[in-house]
């Protein structure tokens, strides 16, 4: 029970803390003030609480698949925002008077959405056990451990990306964001398949034999690179397509910044 709650909460917290740590490290690299983080965290937490209260009504939308569709939309939005962020970084830094503020808005919106989604999942999970006090204490302890591990990994990634040279920071930061964004896109596709909005297909491969998704490593990889043990062709093509797109823009971003410096 404790281990399960550690894994579940770790997965959600890690996704959000990755977004926050990489974006705030890149803020430092690009010379943007980090005031936006506090506000977007607050917005995200408020969003998570609000979403939890409204989840009963939201679930009834679209013939009962409202929750899946809303989650998928949020993840799609995060993907698009990360794409936009990478695109803005790729712009000539000398001509960025307009995009300076826009880039902060994009980062704040990404973190707010990420925290709303992941926070909501954790709240719903904890709420499910709140009636059974002995179990709830176990679940809560596990959740605290999972959250602390997730935040610690996020903090380490932040220090790692910040400590690198300008060029390597950009490469590592944008690379990690590309992986997270592609993972989000693939999850969005999976949710839309579950909601019957996209056709369901046979899995393209099954790697659950040597790396089950439910294992700790599987869950960590799920959060880091969107690992799926049994992805469908649609999911895989969206994942790799999204990843390729972001990586291409990231390469332009690194080159344009290098030339500018």
């Amino acid at each position, binding site marked *: 029970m404790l*281990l399960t709650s*550690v894994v579940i909460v770790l997965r959600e917290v890690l996704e959000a803390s990755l977004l926050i740590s990489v974006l705030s490290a890149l803020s430092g690299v690009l010379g943007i003030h980090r005031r936006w983080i506090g506000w977007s965290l607050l917005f995200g937490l408020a969003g998570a609480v609000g979403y939890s209260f409204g989840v009963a009504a939201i679930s009834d939308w679209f013939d009962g698949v409202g929750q899946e569709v809303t989650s998928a939309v949020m993840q799609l939005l995060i993907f698009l925002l990360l794409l936009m962020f990478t695109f803005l970084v790729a712009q000539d830094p000398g001509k960025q008077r307009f995009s300076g503020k826009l880039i902060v808005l994009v980062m704040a919106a990404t973190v707010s959405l990420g925290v709303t989604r992941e926070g909501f999942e954790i709240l719903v999970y904890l709420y499910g056990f709140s009636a059974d006090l002995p179990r709830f204490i176990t679940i809560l302890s596990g959740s605290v451990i999972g959250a*602390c591990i997730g*935040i*610690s*990994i996020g*903090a*380490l990634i932040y*220090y790692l990306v910040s400590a690198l040279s300008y060029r390597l920071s950009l490469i590592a930061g944008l690379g990690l964001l590309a992986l997270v964004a592609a993972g989000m896109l693939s999850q969005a596709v999976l949710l839309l398949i579950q909601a019957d909005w996209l056709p369901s297909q046979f899995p393209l491969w099954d790697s659950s034999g040597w790396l089950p998704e439910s294992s700790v490593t599987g869950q960590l990889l799920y959060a880091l690179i969107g690992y799926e043990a049994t992805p469908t062709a649609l999911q895989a093509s969206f994942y790799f397509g999204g990843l390729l797109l972001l990586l291409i823009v990231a390469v332009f971003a690194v080159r344009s910044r290098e030339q500018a410096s």
Partner: protein
Amino acid sequence: MLLAIMTLTVFLSALHGYRSSMAEVQQLFDSELLDKARLLAITGNGRSVGVEVVSISDQYAFQVWQGDEIFQRSSNTPLTAISNLDEGYQDVNFGRHRWRTYTWVDLARNRRAVTAERIDIRNVLAERIILKSVMPVIVTLPVAGLLIWLIVGYGLAPLRNLAAHLRSRRAEDLRPIPETRQPLELMQVITSTNDLLARLEASFLRERRFASDAAHELRTPISALKVHLHNMSKNLPAGDHDLVQLEAAVDRMGSLVEQILALHRTAPDQYMARFREIDLYQLVQQVIISSYSGFEQRDIQLELTGARTLMSGDQFALETLVKNLLDNACKYTPAGGHVRVSVATDSAGIMLQVEDSGPGVPEEHYERIFDRFYRAGGDRHQSGVVGCGLGLAIVRHIADLHGASIHLKKSSFESGLSVSVVFPGITGNEGE
């Protein structure tokens, strides 16, 4: 970072401990099941008629089989066998729960005893026991984190104070850092920094003394040179090429020496300014009168606009500033050109502006033209004017002395440079 690494290692080791403790406790529960099964198999006499049903707690269940017949069972088990009656442990489902069972086979008596324990209750129990050992780690870590944060913050305070002390110093302040009440670890840094500051101060002093002493010493021979040249000129035909060249070179040397002396006299860390109330407009007028001949010789139209403007300043320094700006404008404006000087007051302060119609300075050189001996376009300026590149360095010294800022831009003429010196604070001004 330290806290993140600590959290990771402590929590991951706590999880590892939890897993191994969980396995240990499960083993303990298993061995308990085995003992109970063996006990049941031994104690039952097997002679009772029919099935004896015993009520026990919900957590446990048992069945005792004699051959193919059940003769003893707990009330929460069915009449059928709850496991496949093979010796050993099994996980089975009955009574809407999942159970862990152990079957003891006594071949001599042809008897099988099956004991069962509900897995969910057993897990809760096991977790409760283990959580008691994990909980202190979860609770104490934030406290430990807070303590580390406070202690590290306290430990780094002297370093932060030292950094703040150095940051708050003026650039020319090269006094040693106080060595009292400093931690031992910092003493070495402070001693080395003080050594460096002392060496730096000595070298600055040497440089200043050398330049001003040299300039001072050169004044006399230059004056002598000029007298000899004057005498020589009487014996040579007027306009002799070599003589003209020589006179120009001696004049240049003379003005360079004067400029170097002015630069050192007006350096903010050297100059003992005597501030008093001055009418800037009148001061500019006087400087223009004294240097008007230069403009007249080159047929440059000189224009002064403004009104009586009172400000607090040093007479000698301000005269030098205006003179240098005017000399520069005169030097770089071609014959027949324009120079406009204005004194005005606005919300930013008192502004002295000198505009010329010379070739101007490219924007990328704006910052560097205040450097000593820097001349836009190299030693031989495009204008062909010979100079030493100290004029604007002196202007900056005097502006700094008065807390004024200097702004450069293109002049309002077709070409040329506009230099504005903005002095803060107004003590009073009147109409023209």
